[in-house]
């Protein structure tokens, strides 16, 4: 099974060069834009651009698996979590323009450019005359299969250690963020309902005056389901009174 890409050979093909010269400026622009953007979400999006370009670079350099994983994991999951947090913080979260240290920005730009030139020239001089070897051998059994074989043989310990580290970090974060509540503090639905209907607690809203009563007067107390009078239904300033039979008889005006 030939699964290595066509671009895996040592020589730089035309398509590879074209893709590189299109995406390299984009990747750089993304990096600069990330630093320069005032808005936090814009910064994150510039970084997404850089990460996408890097993913394509990996694919170009005969590492299709790592390229796609870069896009899925970094761009799709990690940056999405960043965005999630940024959106929670609020859309107006922007950098302030006040310079705390005088001349810091100029100095940072100068040092950054100098470092980039140093690094770039160093890498350029180091790789100028070298020819890439071993790409075909590495991808001989297929790119994914090759990575899997290395991960599960030579690097299995490092791989598992990284996994343990990540899990520890995750659990640590969860413990720090977790608000411990004692068991008796938590009331589930059943307990809430039991407390609601416990003796001495009135479970419902206060009955309106006149409900199930013999008169619609505000002063007439409501009747509880078993027929007793409830003094919760009448205003405190009014005396609770039951109307006499004479008072409740119809006055003969309804006909």
């Amino acid at each position, binding site marked *: *099974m*030939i*699964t*290595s*890409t*066509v671009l895996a050979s040592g020589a730089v093909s035309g398509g590879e060069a074209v893709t590189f010269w299109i995406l390299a400026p984009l990747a750089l622009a993304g990096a600069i834009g990330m630093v320069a953007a005032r*808005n936090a*979400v*814009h910064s994150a*999006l510039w970084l*997404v651009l850089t990460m*996408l370009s890097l*993913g394509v670079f990996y694919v170009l350099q005969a590492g*299709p*698996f790592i*390229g*796609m*994983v870069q*896009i*899925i994991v970094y*761009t*799709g*999951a990690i940056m*999405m*979590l960043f*965005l*999630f947090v940024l*959106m*929670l913080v609020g*859309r107006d979260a922007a950098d302030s323009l006040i310079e705390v240290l005088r001349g810091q920005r100029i100095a940072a730009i100068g040092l950054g450019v100098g470092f980039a030139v140093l690094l770039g020239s160093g890498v350029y001089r180091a790789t100028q005359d070298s020819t890439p070897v071993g790409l075909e051998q590495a991808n001989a059994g*297929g*790119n*994914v299969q090759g990575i899997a074989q290395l991960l599960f043989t030579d690097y299995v310990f490092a791989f598992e250690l990284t996994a343990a580290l990540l899990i520890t970090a995750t659990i640590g974060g969860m413990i720090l963020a977790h608000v411990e509540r004692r068991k008796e503090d938590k009331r589930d639905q059943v307990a809430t309902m039991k407390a609601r*209907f*416990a*003796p*001495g607690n*009135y*479970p419902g809203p206060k009955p309106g005056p006149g409900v199930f009563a*013999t008169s619609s007067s505000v002063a007439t107390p409501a009747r*509880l*389901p*078993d*027929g*007793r009078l409830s003094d919760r239904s009448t205003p405190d300033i009014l005396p609770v009174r039951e109307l006499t*039979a004479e008072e*409740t008889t*119809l006055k003969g005006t309804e006909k």
Partner: protein
Amino acid sequence: MNPMAQAPSLTDFGHDPWWLILGKIVFAFVVALLGTLLGVWFERRVVGFMQVRPGPNQLGPFGLLQTLADGLKMAFKEDILPKSADKVIYFFAPAISVICAVTALSVIPFGPMVSVFGHQTPLQVTDVPVAVLVVLALSSMAVYGIVLAGWASGSTYPLLGGLRSSAQLISYEVALGLSIVAVFMLAGTMSTSEIVAAQGQGITFNLFGADIQGPGWYAVLLFPSFVVFFISIVGETNRPPFDLPEAESELVAGFMTEYSSLKFALIMLSEYVAMVTMSAFTVTLFLGGWYAPWPISLWSGANSGWWPLLWFFGKVILLVFVFVWLRGTLPRLRYDQLMRLGWKVLIPVSLVWIVVLATWLKAQDWERNDRLVVLGIVGGIGLIAALFWPSRKPQPKPTLVEQVENRPQGSFPLPPLDLQVPPSPRTRRMVAEREPANAPAGQDSQEV
């Protein structure tokens, strides 16, 4: 004819002339657009049928042109840009969704090797060794369209929709990826065309000494993965019952509340293209791709030439129907239910299933005795666990009268249990005074 001769492998890609590549790309694009055009109509008709009403039936035969008319109407509507919107991102967000949804169709195999003007070429735009990961990457990029649309609108409901969708899609992507791992393990490849080819062979397994020819579809062989995968893609495409980002009863229209005109049309387009793409992806991974289903596959010519296009799109339409069916049947989940299903059900089930499958695949190479020993150990542990599993004895339920009698003093009073509320004196009096309406019949009625 050997059916495997028709199945393309990775070496068959990359030899097409430019016009053929262009033609394939246009074909995939047209599939996406037609899928949307017909998909909206299909959904409205099917949901109409399920709700016992006609659905769109005026424009064109069976109302087929209704979507076209709606699209034209949308194009001529006013394009509103909210004052507080982030203009650039607001503009680009729908485009991101559409591009990601359409691009994913490029690695879907529509059919086997066919002859186009003398060129032998696979019916697939392209294939790479990690084609399945390409689809996953694109679907994870499509989230940006929704999230950014919600954020850039600069208003509350879209922001809430965007937040919901980012958390939801990340959760369901994990389950999606885990369910595909089982397919990789069985197929031994991540290229879509080779996964389809692996399903075309069928499997032979040894049951009590007899060789039995089994089906090759991974939906059958990897049924738990298939179930998890399908639930996940429903969540991934924001379709009901997982359409919380646009829950219209809570968030107006969610992330697309502020969108109008062509941008809104683009969002709708991306939603339906994603549905078609994900259905095609499911068909590729689990339902045998373009291979003919069982009764048709008895015909020897079913899997060659242009026929497989028919089987492929038939399966896709069937899956789109299931999507619509789910929408017509299930109520929307609450957000905590959605998260619980994703993290506490789908992901653990996937993980356990992968371990079981890996053990099973590994055990194929073992000696018969070793296999029996392992089976015995696992079965024994299971049996002991089942024996000593703490069981909760159901308490005998007290009767209603007992419950009433056991209530403590001072409880809320109950109405009488025989449900006979004593009539109020006023009612009694009025009944007595009134002339009886149904007076006992007199002599006349007896005579008749």
